[in-house]
Every structure is written in C-alpha cells, then in structure tokens.
C-alpha cells in the first residue's frame, strides 16, 4: 500500500498538482487528464525525478523524502516518450539500471526476451525506432523488485504482440508480487484484459475519482 498525503508540486510558486490524501493498494490505477494537466509531472514526482512536497510512503514506513534510496528501489518509471543517450545500447542501459535496481542477469535477460529485444540488444539507441525505445523503457520499468510501477502512456507506439506481452506481465506482477501500477493513457485500456482498480482524472490541479 502506498500512501500519499498533502502532496503538491509547484513550479516557480505556481502549483501544478496537489493531492490531499490518496491510498493505493496493489492493482491498476488509471490516471486521466488533458494535455498539460500535470500527469507526467505527478508521475515524475512520485518516481523521485522531480522534487515535491508531502508525504509519499509505503506501508512499512519507506518514505520518498526520508528514505530516498530504498524508496527508489521500489519505484520504477517508464516515460511516455523515452529518450536515452544515442550511443548507449540496450545492453549498457539494462545492465547498469538492472544492477542499481537489484535485478540479476537472469531477470534482465527475461525481459529482453519477452519484449523481443534480442536483435537490437547490442545496438546503440540512436538506431532504434520509437517502438523499440518504448520496449526498452518498459523492460527497464520491471527490473528489480518494484512495488510501484509507473507507466506513462505505455501503449503508444507498441505493436500488438508487445502490447499483449505487456498486459501479461502487468497481470503477473499484480497477482504474484502485489505491485501497484499507475498508468496514464489517452487510449482506452482494454477492459477485458486489464482490470482497472480505479480511475482518476486530474481536474483543477487535483486528482478526482473518474
């Protein structure tokens, strides 16, 4: 369970998003919102990429602000439009990030295989299509033993096969590892395949049940 209390994120004194209280248990939470509503800012703040105010804490007391390293070990993030330094290969990135997240090589290779990345695993990112970059970003998001996985627009640029692999892995992580997923998507999430716990909409700079 992740608890968010008195969360707020501001830029130059202007609040972008604030949340009084939110509790997220294992399962999928769909975050909706117009362009510019602050979804990505919210996600990046939770993932520790942007500083923010408020209490963001797991059940056992691991807190974003007071336990930044253990918190980051449990929270993984996949960007909507991932970009990596062009000269790095998937191998360089997955091995390095996997090591920091505590993923052994077996787990790293499992996701490489699942997302069918073997053919370009040792090629530099500058040669990738946006779909290939997306797969790399999604594979990175599952490394280690995360308790919260944030997927920003996970379905865009993915082919049908990769999409079904992603859905299977999400299901597996919810049932076997009790992971919480925060997803944003402008497309409808396949309701037959993915059972969404709750839907939230960002309105008037806060999260309301959708």
């Amino acid at each position, binding site marked *: 369970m992740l608890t968010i209390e008195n969360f707020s*994120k501001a*830029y*130059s004194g202007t609040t*972008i998003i604030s949340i009084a209280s939110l509790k997220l248990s294992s399962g999928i939470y769909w975050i909706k919102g117009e*362009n*510019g*509503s*602050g*979804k*990505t*800012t919210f996600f*990046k703040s939770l*993932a*520790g*990429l*942007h*500083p923010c105010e408020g209490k963001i804490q797991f059940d056992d007391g691991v807190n974003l*602000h007071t336990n*930044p*390293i*253990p*918190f*980051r*070990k449990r*929270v*993984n*993030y996949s*960007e*909507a439009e991932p*970009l*990596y*330094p062009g*000269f*790095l*290969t998937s*191998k*360089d990135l997955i*091995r*390095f*990030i996997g090591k*920091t*997240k505590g993923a052994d090589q077996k787990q790293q290779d499992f996701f490489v295989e699942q997302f069918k990345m073997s053919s370009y695993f*040792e*090629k*530099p990112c*500058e*040669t990738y299509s946006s779909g290939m970059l997306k797969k790399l970003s999604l594979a*990175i998001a599952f490394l280690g033993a995360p308790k919260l996985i944030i997927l920003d627009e996970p379905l865009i640029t993915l082919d049908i096969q990769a999409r079904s692999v992603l859905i299977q892995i999400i299901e597996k992580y919810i049932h076997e590892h009790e992971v919480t997923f925060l997803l944003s998507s402008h497309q409808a999430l396949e309701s037959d395949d993915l059972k969404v716990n709750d839907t939230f909409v960002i309105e008037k700079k806060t999260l309301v049940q959708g």
Partner: protein
Amino acid sequence: MKIVSSILQRILVREFYRANAGLFFLAIGISAGFMRSYEHVALAEFFSASPVLMLVPISVWTIYTINVMKFNRDVLKRKENEFIFHVTLLPPPQKWAGLFVTLFYQLLPAILYGIFLMAFAIRNDFMDTILMIIASLLLLVIVGAFALSHALHHSNQEKKVSLLSKFINLSFTKPFPLFFPEWIARREPLMLFGTKIFSSLILLGVTQLYKTDIYDLRLLGLGIVIAFSAQVVLVWEVQRFDNFYFPLNRNLPIPFSKRLLYFVCTLLILIIPELGMIIKNFPAEFNNLNMILSILFALSIPVFFYGWLYTKDRDQEKLMPFLFFFSISWILLILFKIPLWAIASINLNVGLACLKKFYYSFEYISKPED
C-alpha cells in the same frame, strides 16, 4: 523571415559559439596573451604578401568551416531540433537567405580576420591576395550553406554503426563512468579538447617556470586553480547529462558515496591530460607527498563545483561570476599561504555537503510537462 532567421541563429549560431567557447577562449588567450599587436601586424603582412602564403589562413578557415558543417549536421540530428526541417518548406529565396545569414554569423571570426588581412593587402596593393580572400570566404559561406541545405533535405538517413563500435558493443558493457566522457566527446568535441588544451598549456607553462627560478609550491597551486577552474564547463555538462539527458538517473537507488565515486571515476578519465602534465612535469625540488597533495587539490576543485552546482539551476552565463569569485578566493588563500591540503579539504567537504543537501531538491527551471 525574421522568425526563421531568429530560430536558425538561436539553434545553430548561438549554440555553435557556446559549444566552442573553450576553443575561442584558447584562441583569444593565445592571440591576446602571447602575441603583441606589432606581431599580429607582422603576421598579417606576411600572409598578405603572397597568394601562396595566403593558403595558410585559408587552410585554417577551411578546417573551421568543416567543423561548422559537422556541428550543423550533429545539431540537426538531435530529436529536439526536428522542427527545423520545416525550413525546407519555405520558398527558396527565403530559405537560402536564412541559411546564408546563418553561415555568415558562424564564419564571422574567419570573415573578420579576412577583412583584417585585406586591409594590409589593399595598403600594399596586392590585388591577388584581395581576390583570394574574397573568393575563399565567399566559397566557404556558399559551401557551408549548401551543406546545411543538404542536411535539411536529407534528414532521415539511416544511422550507420562503425565496425569498431559494433565490436565494442558486442564485446563490452559500458560502465556508467564512461557514459559521460563518450557523450561529451561526441556532442561537443571541440569544447572538450579546447578545455584540455587550455588547461594542459597552463600547467605546462607553470611547471616550466620552476626550471628558470626558485618558487615555492604556491605557484603550481595558482596554475592548478586556473587549469581546474576551467573544468567547470565540463562539470556543468556532467550535471546536465545526469539530470537532463539521462534523467532516469535520478530514479536510480544509488547511494551518495557511490554517486560521488562514479563522478570521481568520470573526472579521472576527463582529466587524464592534466594529471599527466602535473605528474610528468612536477618540479623536482618537491617530494611525492607534495605531488599527491597537488593532485588532491586539483581534484577538489571540480568536486566542489559538482556539489555546488546542485544548489541552484544556473546557466553558463550566470555561472561565470561565481567561477571568477571562487577562483579569486582560492588564489588569495594560496597567496596568503593557506596550505593546499587545507583548501582541498574545505573544497571536498563543501562539495559533498552540497551534493547531499541539494541533490534530490535540485530541479531545472523548466516548463511542467504534460
């Protein structure tokens, strides 16, 4: 038209001068520091005296133009600059005007020196030289503009990976401390090498002074301050890489001690030329402990800046007054005989404290995303 010209200048011209600031700094340092005005005049008269001798500055301008063309190609490959390809949709007169103005500004140092040489050629009535200067500069601007136009019209070329890169990628996994050195060497090679040449020359010059007279260790300390303060542009780029170009880095559960270790490893790779210069030319009258202390002092300057840069997002322009202030402070401390180990200790502690305190609260001042 004005907006097209303005965008091209911001993306290509301003960025070009910013990326090559180290090199221009070096050129200004050499021409203003090592040469007197009458030597410049003598050199200009020498070049302008014969068309054969004019081949020397023309060769330099050609190399400079090749660098400009490479820079433009690299900038256009960046994803954030894809919108510039819309320039190709403009009516040809507007497009070419924008491209020629861009190249004119990028080649301005060569054009200004050409005008300087022409003044001597006119005074001495060397018509061949005048025609050579005009023709060569005009040709370089035209070639540069055509190269830019070609890059704009052939944006979607397949990225080729060299055999060596393929071999390296297959055989090795790059360790994190190598990420930045390769990134900066690819992205801004002239800035990197300009900084290296500048700081190495400073250290070489300072260490050579010990051969002519008796000085204490403070002179080397002053040289280290200048040479390693110049590394701040690289440290600034390290921070940009870590937080902007590889932002996922901030999500990684890496303890501070390890982050600092990664930075020091990266730093050691970047300052190999300067370290080599200190070790190879270290004055014979000082013992090895002094050498270790000097190297520690040298390392402490970039470590200080690395931590201090996290206190607030500053662009390079805003950074310069602080760089000047810190450098002068170190110079004064050295002149007042504060030992190098004491200054190094302060630098390392302040750098570490800033990194720990501000790392997670640091943020680029930018627009919020979607």
